[in-house]
C-alpha cells in the first residue's frame, strides 16, 4: 500500500498522495483550494481553462493542477505570488470576452466565474477592444443558452460524451471563432441533459423554464426526494414565497451522485398547472360544486361507512405508487379499518397469479452504487433509460468503465449508449420463450435439472448461440445480477418470467433483483398496500382483490389516493369504476373529475412531509418544501381526519414522523430477500403485453410539466399514441 503513496508538500505542509493522482486531487484533499472552471470531479480532465495554475518547485513555469500528476518530493504552492499572479492573469484572459451582464444573468449570485472574479479579477479592465458576440443556440425546451457568456471550459461537451454516452455538443470553429454548440440546429435530447446547467460554471447554460423568474439569494433551499422513479433521487427545491421555482440536485454519492434526471428537475412545473384543485369538490348531477372540507370529509365518511356496514368487500382502495410511506400506511389502515382487503398500489400489474411468492418488497438485489461494480447483468423487461435514468447511468458506467457484460431480454429493442453483450428482442418469440431458452442453455451447460416450476417451459425451449452466450456470461465472474424491470412486472406472463428468472438465478448463482415499478413502490409494500399482505409482509387470513380485479368487479365504492389518472390505470378502468361505484379521489388535479364523485385536493410531493423508500430499501424522509396550493392539504392530514371521522382507533397522529415511526417499529424485522419459493408449475396469466413506460408521462405531475412535454421525446411518444 505504501508503495502506492508519494510524499509531497503543499504550501509547506507534508502530505501523502496516491500515485497517479493529479495535484488538484491532493490539494482538494488537503483543503487547499485551487480555483478551477474546466475541472470537474465526475468528468475527464481537459485542462483547457488554465485557472488552476499552481507553482511547483523547480518547474520553470506554473503548472495546471488538474493535469499534473503528483511525484515524489514535489513541493506545491497554491498561494505563492507566482501562483496567484498566474491565476490572476488567466482570469484577465477569461474576462476579455465575457460580457459584464451579471445583473441580467440568471447565474448571477451563484456563478463560479463571478465568485472567482471577485477573488482573482482586476478592479479595472485593461482591455478596451470590442468583446466578441456569439449567437445563442436553440438546444431544446429545457436548457436556455447565452453563448456569449461561454468560457469554453467544455464541461457540457464532456458531459454529453462521457456521462450521456453520446456526444451531442461540440466545440465548433477555431481560435477566436470557437463556439460550443450542436453545429446544426438540434436539441439536446438525453434524459440527463439538464445536468449541463449545473455543470456550466458561467451563465451560458441555464434552465429555460426557470429563466428570469427568481434570484438565487431570494430563495430558500429545501430537500426533496424524487417520486418519479424508484431510485430515490435526492434533490433540492428552491422555494420563493412558498412556491417551488426550480429543482436542482442534492449530492448523494450512494444514490444519484451529483446528477438528477430531467424528469426530476423539471417536473415541478406540473405543480402549478392550471387544473390544480384548490378546494374540495362534489359532483352534483352533471356539474361540480366547491364545498368546504368539513362537508366533503363528512360526505366521504358517511358514504364509506354506509357501504362498509353492508359489505366491506364492496370498498376498493387504490393508491398511486408514488404516494409517501405515511400516506400509503394511513390508506392501508383506513381500508383494513373499514374491513376491506381490496387495496392495491400495483396499478399496472396485470398478472398477480403468483403474488404470494412476491418478496416482502421488490429489492434491487444490491445497492445502487454496487451496480457499477457488477461484472455481468441480464435485464429482463425494462426500458431502462426511461424507467430509471440514473440506474441506466450506473449500468452504463459498469459496461463502459469496467467492461461489464450487459444483456437484455425485451419485447422490443431500445437504444442504449453503451456496449450491449446480447439483445434478445422479439424475433417472433416473446420474452418468456427467450428467457426459457437462456435457462435451458444454463442448465445444459451446468448439467443440472431445472426447477419444477419451469420444467415444462424450459423443455420446449430452443436455445440458440445468443441464449447460450447470455447463460455463459451469467455463470461466471464476480457480481452477477438478473434484473426484472417494469415491463416484465406489467406483462401478462409475469409469473412465468419471474419463475424463469428465479430458476436462472438458482442455476447460475446470479443475484435476482427487481427494478420496482413506481416511485415509492417499496414503501407501499412495507405499508401493506397490497390485497394479500398486511404491514411488513404479514400474511392475512383472506386475500382481497388486486387492482385489476377490483376494477373488473365493479364495486360499490372506490377510494383513490395520490392523483391517479386514467393513464395510470388499465384500459376501461373509469367506466368500470363508474358503473356502480361511488368514487372518492384524493387528487391534486381536476382530471379526477373524470371518474370521482368527491375530490379532496391534496398537496403534491413537494408540498408534504413524508418518507420515500427506494429500490435498495433505503428510507429517506423530507420535511416538505412548499406550501400546498389554496385549501389543498397534505394527503396524510386528510387521511388522518378521515380516519377520525370513520371512528378508527389510534388515529391521532400529530405529525408525519409519528406515522413513519409507528410503521418503522413494525418493519424492523424485514430483510431484503428476493428468493423465490414456488415449486408448482406456473402458467401464463393473460396475453396482455406490458404497457410501455413513457419517460415523460409516468405520473400526473410529469404529464403537466410544460417544458418536458415539449421535448422531442414527449412529442414523439404522443405522436405514437395517436398513430
Amino acid at each position: 500500500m505504501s508503495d502506492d503513496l508519494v510524499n509531497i508538500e503543499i504550501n509547506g505542509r507534508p502530505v501523502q498522495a496516491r500515485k497517479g493522482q493529479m495535484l488538484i486531487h491532493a490539494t482538494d484533499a488537503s483543503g487547499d483550494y485551487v480555483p478551477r472552471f474546466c475541472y470537474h470531479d465526475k468528468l475527464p480532465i481537459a485542462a483547457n481553462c488554465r485557472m488552476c495554475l499552481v507553482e511547483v518547485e523547480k518547474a520553470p513555469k506554473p503548472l495546471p493542477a488538474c493535469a499534473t500528476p503528483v511525484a515524489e518530493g514535489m513541493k506545491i504552492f497554491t498561494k505563492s505570488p507566482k501562483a496567484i499572479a498566474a491565476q490572476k492573469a488567466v482570469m484577465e484572459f477569461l474576462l476579455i470576452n465575457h460580457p459584464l451582464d451579471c445583473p441580467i444573468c440568471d447565474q448571477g449570485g451563484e456563478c463560479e466565474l463571478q465568485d472567482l472574479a471577485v477573488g482573482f479579477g482586476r478592479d479595472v479592465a485593461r482591455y478596451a477592444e470590442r468583446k466578441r458576440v456569439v449567437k445563442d443556440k436553440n438546444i431544446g425546451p429545457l436548457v436556455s443558452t447565452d453563448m456569449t457568456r461561454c468560457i469554453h471550459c467544455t464541461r457540457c461537451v464532456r458531459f454529453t460524451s462521457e456521462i450521456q454516452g453520446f456526444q451531442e455538443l461540440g466545440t465548433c470553429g477555431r481560435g477566436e471563432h470557437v463556439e460550443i454548440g450542436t453545429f446544426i440546429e438540434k436539441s439536446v435530447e438525453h434524459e440527463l441533459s439538464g445536468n449541463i446547467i449545473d455543470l456550466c460554471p458561467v451563465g451560458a447554460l441555464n434552465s429555460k423554464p426557470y429563466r428570469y423568474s427568481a434570484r438565487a439569494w431570494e430563495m430558500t433551499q429545501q430537500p426533496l426526494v424524487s417520486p418519479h422513479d424508484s431510485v430515490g433521487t435526492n434533490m433540492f427545491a428552491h422555494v420563493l414565497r412558498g412556491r417551488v421555482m426550480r429543482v436542482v440536485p442534492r449530492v448523494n454519492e450512494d444514490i444519484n451522485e451529483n446528477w438528477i434526471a430531467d424528469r426530476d428537475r423539471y417536473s415541478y412545473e406540473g405543480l402549478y398547472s392550471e387544473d390544480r384543485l384548490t378546494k374540495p369538490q362534489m359532483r352534483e348531477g352533471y356539474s361540480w360544486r366547491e364545498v368546504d372540507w368539513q362537508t366533503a370529509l363528512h360526505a366521504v365518511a358517511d358514504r364509506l361507512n354506509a357501504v362498509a356496514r353492508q359489505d366491506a368487500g364492496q370498498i376498493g382502495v387504490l393508491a398511486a405508487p408514488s404516494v409517501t410511506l405515511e400516506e400509503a400506511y394511513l390508506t392501508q389502515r383506513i381500508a383494513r379499518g373499514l374491513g376491506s382487503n381490496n387495496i392495491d398500489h400495483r396499478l399496472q400489474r396485470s398478472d398477480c397469479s403468483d403474488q404470494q411468492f412476491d418478496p416482502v418488497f421488490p429489492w434491487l438485489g444490491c445497492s445502487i452504487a454496487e451496480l457499477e461494480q457488477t461484472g455481468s447483468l441480464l435485464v429482463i423487461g425494462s426500458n431502462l433509460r426511461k424507467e430509471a435514468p440514473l440506474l441506466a447511468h450506473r449500468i452504463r458506467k459498469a459496461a463502459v468503465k469496467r467492461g461489464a457484460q450487459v444483456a437484455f431480454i425485451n419485447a422490443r429493442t431500445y437504444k442504449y449508449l453503451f456496449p450491449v453483450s446480447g439483445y434478445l428482442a422479439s424475433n417472433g418469440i416473446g420474452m418468456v420463450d427467450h428467457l426459457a431458452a437462456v435457462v435451458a442453455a444454463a442448465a445444459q451447460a451446468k448439467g443440472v435439472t431445472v426447477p419444477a416450476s419451469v420444467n415444462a417451459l424450459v423443455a420446449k425451449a430452443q436455445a440458440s448461440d445468443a441464449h447460450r452466450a447470455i447463460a455463459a456470461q451469467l455463470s461466471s465472474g464476480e457480481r452477477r445480477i438478473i434484473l426484472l424491470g417494469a415491463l416484465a412486472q406489467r406483462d401478462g406472463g409475469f409469473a412465468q418470467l419471474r419463475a424463469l428468472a428465479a430458476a436462472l438465478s438458482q442455476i447460475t448463482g446470479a443475484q435476482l433483483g427487481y427494478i420496482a415499478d413506481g416511485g415509492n413502490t417499496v414503501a407501499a409494500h412495507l405499508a401493506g398496500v397490497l390485497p394479500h399482505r398486511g404491514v411488513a409482509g404479514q400474511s392475512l387470513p383472506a386475500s382481497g382483490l388486486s387492482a385489476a380485479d377490483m376494477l373488473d368487479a365493479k364495486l360499490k365504492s372506490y377510494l383513490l389516493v395520490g392523483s391517479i389518472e386514467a393513464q395510470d390505470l388499465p384500459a376501461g378502468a373509469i367506466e368500470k369504476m363508474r358503473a356502480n361505484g361511488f368514487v372518492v379521489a384524493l387528487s391534486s388535479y381536476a382530471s379526477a373529475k373524470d371518474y370521482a364523485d368527491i375530490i379532496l385536493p391534496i398537496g403534491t410531493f413537494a408540498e408534504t412531509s413524508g418518507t420515500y423508500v427506494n429500490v435498495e430499501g433505503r428510507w429517506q424522509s423530507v420535511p416538505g418544501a412548499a406550501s400546498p396550493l389554496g385549501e389543498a392539504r397534505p394527503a396524510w392530514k386528510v387521511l388522518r381526519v378521515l380516519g377520525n371521522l370513520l371512528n378508527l382507533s389510534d388515529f391521532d397522529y400529530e405529525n408525519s414522523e409519528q406515522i413513519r415511526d409507528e410503521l418503522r417499529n413494525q418493519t424492523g424485522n424485514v430483510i431484503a430477500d428476493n428468493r423465490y419459493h414456488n415449486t408448482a408449475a406456473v402458467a401464463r396469466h393473460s396475453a396482455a403485453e406490458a404497457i410501455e413506460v413513457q419517460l415523460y408521462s409516468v405520473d400526473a405531475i410529469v404529464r403537466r410539466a410544460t417544458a418536458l412535454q415539449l421535448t422531442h421525446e414527449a412529442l414523439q411518444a404522443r405522436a405514437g399514441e395517436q398513430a
Partner: protein
Amino acid sequence: MSNTDHNAVQTGLSAHLKEEIDHWLTKFPPERKRSAVLAALRAAQHENNGFLTAQQMDAIAEYLQLPPIQVYEVASFYSMFETKPVGRYHVSVCTNISCMLCGGEELLEHVEKRLGIKVGESTSDGRFFLKREEECLAACTGAPMMMVDHVFYENLTPARVDEILDSLK
C-alpha cells in the same frame, strides 16, 4: 447551416468515397476510426463542388460510427473545409509577411475589385470563391503568390493574375 435532422434518412456515400475512406482506415488501428475523419471530409468535399453538406457529414459519421458532432467539429475547425455552398474555383491570395512585403495585399485588393467580392465571398455566377486563407502557404521564395484550388501561382503581377483568372471557366 442546414436544419437537417441527423436522424433523417442518410443520403449515403458514393462507392468511390467509401473506397477512399476504407483506404484511410487501413492506416489506423481499428478502434481509431475517428482518425479517418479528416481524409474522409477531404474526399467528400472534393466530390461535392468544394463544400460539405450536413448530409455528407452525417453519412461520414454513420460510416465511421461517430456522433455527427465529432465530424462537424473537424469540418468547422479546418479552414480547408467549407460547410456552405461556395464558388467552383477556390482562390486564396497570401498576405503573410513575405507576400505582404512583395505586394500581396495590393494583389488581394486587385482580385477583390476584379471579382467584385470580398474575402470569404463567392461570385454570383458561382465561378470563384475568394477564400480566407490561414497563411502562410509556404511559397515565400515566389512571393507574392496565390493558390487556386491546389495549384500554386508565384511571382505574380496584377496582369498575370487577370490572365490566370480569365483562364478559369
